[in-house]
């Protein structure tokens, strides 16, 4: 995947069908990635960078923070839609914590297509899973360009 690939993938609303599955996004989480995510989101809660603190709270290791998870989920969706896919809404539910060493796999599926006012919308359901189960799930609403209203 590169910037050119993402642009080339750009989708029109007309080309999307309900039930379509998004190409999965697979990540091998490391301590460095989790801490870089915490710093990049300015989230200094020790659970996301301090293993001793995480263990004192009953976790086996540091935990991927919410905003970085949201960033991964958004990447799953815009890697598929291309940059013209405008994120209008994001619902995020975090369940099982993700830790260093986990393989985190994101999947998504188009659950509906609709037109609201001038906007051509699609709803995508997504989930990120680790071996222990669902880490984070929810939906995105995206506005896509339409062939009928391209300018």
């Amino acid at each position, binding site marked *: *995947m*590169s*910037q050119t*690939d*993402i*642009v080339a993938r750009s989708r029109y609303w007309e080309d999307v069908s309900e039930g379509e599955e998004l190409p999965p996004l697979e990540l091998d989480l490391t301590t460095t*990635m*989790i801490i*870089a*995510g915490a*710093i*990049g*989101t*300015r*989230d*200094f*809660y*020790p659970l996301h960078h301090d293993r001793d603190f995480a263990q004192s709270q009953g976790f086996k290791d540091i935990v991927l923070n*919410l*905003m*970085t998870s*949201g*960033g*991964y*989920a*958004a*990447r799953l969706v*815009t*890697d598929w839609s291309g*940059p013209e896919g405008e*994120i*209008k*809404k*994001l*619902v*995020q*539910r*975090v369940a099982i914590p993700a830790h260093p060493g986990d393989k985190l796999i994101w999947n998504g599926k188009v659950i509906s297509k609709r037109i609201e006012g001038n906007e051509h919308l699609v709803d995508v359901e997504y989930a990120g899973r680790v071996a222990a189960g669902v880490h984070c799930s929810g939906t995105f609403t995206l506005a896509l360009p339409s062939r009928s209203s391209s300018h």
Partner: protein
Amino acid sequence: MGADIYSELVAMIGMESPPQTCVDECSKDMIRHFVEPIKDENPLYTNDEFAKNSKYGGIIAPPAMMYTWCLAPIWGPDGQEVKWREEVRRKDNPDPLSLVITKLEEAGYTLALSADITYEFIKPVVPGDRITSSEKLIAVSQEKKTRAGVGYFTTYVRTYWNQKGEVVCKQNYVNYKFKPQEA
């Protein structure tokens, strides 16, 4: 005792935090630091030339970055030094989340989980923007038992706006404050 806490929480519904303005302006550097661990190659976030020719006319911040605009710094040149954001909230702002957390912690509900977050993105945040946000308590549950323990769900809506006063995002947030339950 549980019933008393519940009615005290209900009495707080509608309470709003004082607006907090982010110490940092949105910048290309902050955007790059966000997308770096995510390895997000969306050119709207990092490619000036592509972004200039897009409908936005320039680089935009990833929408998923929104909550970062309301996190307090852990140090400031004015001598402010704190361990992490919840302490800042509690010290400086009588905001509903801090008051709910404090009240529930005093009653022994020491653990917390974010149950559900919904962001509605209204306008992109762009480099140069300075974001202000404020949070309002909108709902409180009765004491509820879950697999994690027993505690209270409280729901907040946070509104984000830019320096022109334009609302850029509304975020609904559910917090579950609980204590482990003995088997």
